């Protein structure tokens, strides 16, 4: 009797349904193959033009930073005291500052520092914060208590003060700025990721993974972390500008990048005293910061949409 039932089933599954075959052919054309990095980018290019434009802007800034020496005939520290505070002209595209240095040149060289201080410490703090947040949320118990108390301590201090203390202990320099900013920012990332994970770990698919015997590590980094991605992208776009600005404050206080090297934050600050008679001193680097921040925002939006499984057809 068992045999016959199984046979009946076999027949039912073999019987080709002409209609479903048509549909599946159509689907095959629709979905194609596994999604790779390039197909992902292509889809984003197709769906979100603004994100592509933003990516191009970011790329231009990066190129400018890398090829700065070839793009300008001045150097960032050459002073031309006869041409102090001159307005933008063909000679000096964005004018000159109080020491007669070409602002366009300083902007290019400054972007090396600012782009790096915007992105590197943010990525560091995101990575660290996300890993600690996931462990804290999923593992719970003593790990949770330890990590969250540490985070509380970090958050309880005024972040500027904390950054100054760390900078003072480590000394100036770019690498130390990175470390400082990462140390200051990880706690808030960890908190947000943890709260997200607390909600996600109750979902059935996490239980389903546990049933299969998926190791804890894999559950954390394959199931939980990717589902925190939308939040993390938003966090990233918020943290990049704040890192750029924190760096400028530190530099202003004499703890970050030192003159005659330049960073955008430093330029904004230095130009403040000439805001009335030479506004371009502050305005140019401010606009640069704004552009890069907006570009990261739009790119983040585009990435989030493209990575969202519900948007996939």
């Amino acid at each position, binding site marked *: 009797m*068992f045999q016959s*039932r*199984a046979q009946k*089933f076999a027949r039912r*599954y073999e019987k080709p349904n002409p209609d*479903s075959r048509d549909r*599946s052919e159509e*689907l*095959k054309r629709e*979905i*194609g*193959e*596994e*999604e790779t990095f390039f197909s992902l980018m292509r889809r984003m290019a197709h769906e979100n033009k603004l994100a592509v434009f933003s990516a191009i802007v970011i790329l231009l800034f990066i190129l400018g930073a890398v090829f700065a020496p070839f793009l300008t005939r001045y150097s960032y520290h050459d002073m031309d005291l006869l041409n102090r505070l001159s307005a933008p002209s063909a000679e000096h595209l964005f004018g000159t500052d109080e020491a007669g240095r070409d602002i366009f040149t300083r902007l290019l060289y400054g972007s090396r520092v600012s782009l790096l201080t915007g992105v590197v410490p943010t990525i560091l703090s995101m990575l660290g914060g996300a890993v600690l947040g996931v462990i804290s949320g999923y593992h719970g118990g003593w790990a949770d208590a330890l990590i969250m108390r540490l985070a509380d301590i970090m958050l309880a201090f005024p972040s500027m003060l904390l950054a100054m203390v760390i900078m003072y202990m480590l000394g100036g320099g770019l690498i130390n700025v990175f470390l400082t900013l990462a140390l200051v920012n990880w706690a808030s990332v960890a908190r947000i990721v943890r709260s997200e994970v607390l909600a996600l770990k109750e*979902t*059935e*698919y996490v*239980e*389903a*993974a*546990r*049933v*299969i*015997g*998926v*190791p804890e590590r*894999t559950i954390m980094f394959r*199931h939980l972390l*990717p*589902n925190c*991605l939308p939040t993390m992208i938003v966090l990233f776009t918020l943290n990049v500008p704040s890192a750029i600005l924190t760096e400028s404050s530190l530099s202003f206080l004499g703890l970050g990048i030192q003159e005659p090297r330049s960073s955008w934050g430093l330029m904004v600050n230095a130009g403040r005293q000439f805001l009335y008679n030479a506004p371009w001193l502050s305005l140019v680097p401010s606009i640069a910061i704004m552009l890069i921040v907006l570009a990261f925002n739009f790119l983040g939006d585009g990435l989030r949409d493209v990575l969202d*499984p*519900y948007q*996939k*057809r």
Partner: protein
Amino acid sequence: MSEILIEGRNLTKEFTAGRKKKVHAVTDVSLQILQGETLGLVGESGCGKSTLGRLLIRLLKPDSGRLLVHGEDVTDLSDKEFGKYRRQLQLIFQDPYASLDPRLCVRDLIAEPLKTWHVCRTKEELTQRVLEKMEEVGVPGEYLYRYPHQFSGGQRQRIGIARALAAQPELIVCDEPVSALDVPVQNQILNLLNQLQESKGLTYLFISHDLSVVRHISDRVCVMFLGTICEIGKTQEVFQNPMHPYTRFLMNAILPPDPHRRNDQAELLSGEIPSAVNPPSGCRFHTRCPYADERCRREMPALQDAGDGHQAACHHTMN
């Protein structure tokens, strides 16, 4: 008599709910699941059937009691030591959507157990195995790179089954696998489960609140009320000759799809299910039971055998 696959002895599980409140989810339950059978677990919501199902595959650890797999006591094993049993004891869920990670495509979902247990050496082999599993459950291979939300409820449930199958289990706990589905789709899934059982010799613990479904699929039925077992026995026996009053009331509440058989006259259970935070003393059913007397309020009845493995926990067994 077939071999005992899983045995729970005096399992008890309580959850804390708020301050000092305890939910008595499962109280002193002993249950055996035999190799190759389908054991139906019936009860209303909050009766502890899902908790019991999870205790029996050690997804939850009991507060007290023992769990035996193939006669070996696994209650106190560490998760690592339990590892070899893990893949043998699988679970499929009620909501086939919530149980599939929305960020993984079908291939990755079904490949997960295979990867976890290092079954395949190459990527091609893995994809091949995934396609085999998809075919077994009747999901077209073209859907390999689609995401869960692009499927209908029935297809999602099939994917959930394929995932469980990929672990090559002996026992699958089916936690209300069809209650979110429409009847024709529900029937397809039940047929599939039956077919898989025959071709692979699987054992099922089938949890459901729907007596008709349980009656169709089960070899034996176990009726639960508020954390305890009321009645257990061969399906035929229990349905034709219910011994516990609760079982009878459950059957009275069945709504046949036939206007000629309206149950207007059938005696219905009055009142609501008592809270599991403060379960009644004695027999937990006594507050709703029309036959309850002083003894029922004092003493919790033990399961008594009426022959052929048909047991009921009642001081006044029906007949």
